[in-house]
């Protein structure tokens, strides 16, 4: 495997999968993530912002906690690898510039409120006139049609309506009675989920435009894509919807199965996957602490019992007593060696020191030259042999590429 790994290192400088794709994105915080995914895959992503800057420049936290349009860590996180230009779309001259720009684009991502770009004469109908091959992707809270079309969304609202909040929370006190509410998953998941759906749809449309093959079905054209953040979030709840469809049972909101270790960190466990054969190994692990006796009940030697809630709770309780004297890191490796599917539940920043993440080069320092510093970002969602994920440069300062982009457009005109 080392050989293959070495090949990745050599591949680092190669262009991304979509290095022939130009993307123009316009809109607020729901456009950022999708453009970042395409930039990571090599696209030339140009972010169009109003003169005062994108609304996402106002989302914190901020560098050194000083709010400023060029110091938003939210903006930094989701806009690296892009170029940025400013346009006042309420002014006729800039609307023309926008059309000049989208004429050169393969993909337009429009996350302005539904209807706004049409009202400005810059919607899909107008873009199609100047660029027949354009893939035009609209991202709005609820999509362009449907009874909730004009509802206001937000990360919290989408996680509530989309159903993920229903599945996040602490366990019930008694059947049907919760002391605490359902919780949202912090860190902007609704925008990420919509972006993932949008990016795959865009990639497929772009592929179909470029590789119609021997088909006679119209490949080679552009098309329009309507992304509803609500629809995407509603799809993100794994087996909960099919489980209801097929059994009539709703998911029960529960805290995850986890045990606390000596360093205060939790280990998440999936005990239902444990096989009888692994219990023998587990008893060996527990023997020095004298805890192996707790798993010596002969019922544990029947496959049916091991899968019952009673059995998994008994095993988890025993493992909890064992882990109380181990750090999460020690417990993780020891339990995995006994084929217990488990992992430490850590704050993200602790991954920077994780041996697995280090080995896989999961983090990268990106220069912020105007600050004379570099900061740490996630490097890639997967490793590739031929075309690496593009990690930088850092997000554009407001208007940073105005001159460069317009000059480029003029020289190509």
């Amino acid at each position: 495997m080392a050989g293959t790994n070495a090949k990745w290192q050599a591949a680092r400088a190669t262009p991304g999968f979509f290095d022939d794709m130009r993307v123009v994105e316009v809109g607020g915080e729901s456009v950022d993530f999708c453009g970042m995914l395409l930039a990571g895959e090599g696209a030339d992503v140009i972010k169009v912002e109003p003169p005062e800057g994108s609304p996402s420049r106002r989302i914190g936290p901020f560098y050194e906690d000083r709010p400023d349009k060029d110091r938003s860590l939210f903006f930094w996180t989701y806009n690296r690898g892009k170029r940025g230009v400013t346009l006042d779309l309420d002014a006729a001259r800039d609307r023309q510039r926008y059309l000049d720009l989208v004429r050169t684009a393969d993909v337009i991502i429009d996350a302005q409120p539904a209807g706004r770009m049409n009202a400005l004469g810059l919607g899909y109908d107008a873009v199609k006139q100047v660029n027949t091959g354009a893939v035009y992707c609209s991202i709005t809270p609820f999509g362009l049609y449907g009874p909730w079309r004009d509802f206001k969304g937000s990360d919290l609202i989408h996680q509530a309506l989309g159903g993920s909040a229903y599945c996040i929370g602490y366990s019930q006190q008694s059947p049907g009675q919760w002391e605490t509410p359902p919780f949202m998953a912090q860190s902007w998941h609704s925008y990420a989920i919509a972006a993932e759906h949008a990016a795959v749809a865009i990639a497929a449309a772009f592929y179909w435009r470029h590789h119609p093959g021997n088909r006679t079905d119209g490949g080679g054209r552009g098309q329009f894509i309507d992304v509803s953040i609500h629809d995407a979030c509603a799809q993100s709840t794994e087996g909960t919807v099919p489980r209801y469809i097929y059994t009539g049972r709703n998911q029960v909101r529960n805290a995850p199965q986890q045990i606390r270790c000596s360093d205060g960190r939790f280990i998440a466990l999936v005990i239902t996957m444990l096989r009888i054969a692994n219990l023998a190994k587990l008893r060996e692990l527990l023997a020095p602490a004298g805890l192996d006796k707790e798993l010596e009940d002969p019922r544990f030697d029947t496959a049916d019992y091991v899968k019952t809630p009673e059995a998994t709770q008994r095993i988890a309780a025993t493992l909890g007593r064992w882990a109380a004297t181990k750090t999460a890191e020690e417990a993780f490796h020891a339990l995995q060696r006994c084929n217990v599917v488990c992992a430490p539940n850590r704050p993200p920043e602790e991954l920077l020191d994780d041996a697995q993440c280090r080995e896989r080069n999961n983090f990268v320092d990106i220069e912020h030259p105007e600050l004379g510093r570099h900061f740490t970002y996630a490097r890639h969602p997967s490793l590739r042999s031929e075309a690496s994920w593009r990690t930088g440069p850092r997000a554009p300062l407001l208007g940073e590429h105005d001159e460069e982009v317009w000059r480029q457009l003029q020289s190509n005109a």
Partner: protein
Amino acid sequence: MSKTSSDRGPALGSEMSPLPLKGVRITDLTWALASAGNATLLASLGAEVIRIEWPERMDFTRLSETAGVGISSREAQRTPLGPGKKEIPYQKKGSPVPPHANRSGVFNDRNPGKYGITLNMSLAEGREVFKRLVRTSDVVMDGFKAPVMGKWGLDYDGLRAIKEDIIYIQMSGYGNTGPCRNYGSLGPTAQAFSGLGYLHGLPEPHEPTSWSHSYMDTTPPFYGALAVIGALHHRNRTGRGQYIDQAQYEPGLFLNGTALLDFSANGRRSGRHGNRSPYLPAAPHGIYRCAGDDAWIAIAVFNDAEWRSLCACMENPDWTRERRFATLEARIANQDALDALVEQWTIAQDHYALMYRLQEAGVPAGAVQSPEDKVRTDPHLKVRDFFVQLDHSELGTWPFTRHLTPKLSATPAHPGGPTHRGAPCIGEDNRYVYEELLGMSAEEIRAYEDRGVI
């Protein structure tokens, strides 16, 4: 904003429209949800996905808790089941596979649009048949623990020796390098390992809550599908194949918001913020109890206009005029008191009626929807055809969720993919794949069957 018909976007494509990945063939050795879901997305875009299974090592989602149970709930709907498939290899051989292996709802929903064959990869002869399949494929994908394919000589170098420009995506738990490469991984542990689960719930000393479903089973397929489509585009332009090594936890590193940068740039460690909005000023911002069992509403107020609308909906009780709630800053500073007062108002109300009232008044609000709500009542998902009816050879017709939700005007994705069908029964497409695609004779197939190869 005026609503013209063109604001809806162009007319949507129909089921007669082309699928964008038509002509792409994928040999699918995936497993469970996180890896299988990648092939499912690509099938919904038109790729011909051939899912390989072997009855003695069956995907556990075929035997999940929902297996068989769905039949009774569906019978209650008084519509007939499909005709059933009688000619299924595992039944002929008297294998230990239970008859409900074809009747898992979760497996059906997660694997529509695929072809299904039986092939015993643990036999050398089985791997020879596999190689014939690879020769006719554009993409190979697997969801084994990382070392498995290499032990069979079928890692990227091995696959490339079979087909030079093959695209191979390996979707293991921890990736093909590193000290954890042999470890087991599932949704709940991937969302822990990647740091995501730590961020939800109440601040210390409360435990992190994570998701009670496997978010990190639903999410990695999108990253995998994006990479595969990219690699196909790259291959078509350069003639070169690709090896993609995706760990289940790795996409999660992109999903933990600003946590990494806040640590790297500001030295701040992660915490939990309940339902508050720590980085975009808002108050009230929470999920509040409503009338009825387990009924809740989310309300998010980002500015004074929304606050005034909320107050009007509450009929402007005296407390809303108190100094401590006069500005957004003040409301944030006094959120605990504010949340308690808002909940005193929501607790007697129906969460849906309240949502409509608040949204009508311009206040962002949403009922906390359960799976049942999404299936039975969500009027928006209904109008947007979120569910699609598909046939399954044993289970009959069921509603399926769209795995890829965006509406593409020219090449709409469809969960039925090229098969126009739900998930395959075990070995359902042996004849099509072995006879038509690989050109085996009936005798050859029978011989393989007799030797336990297919």
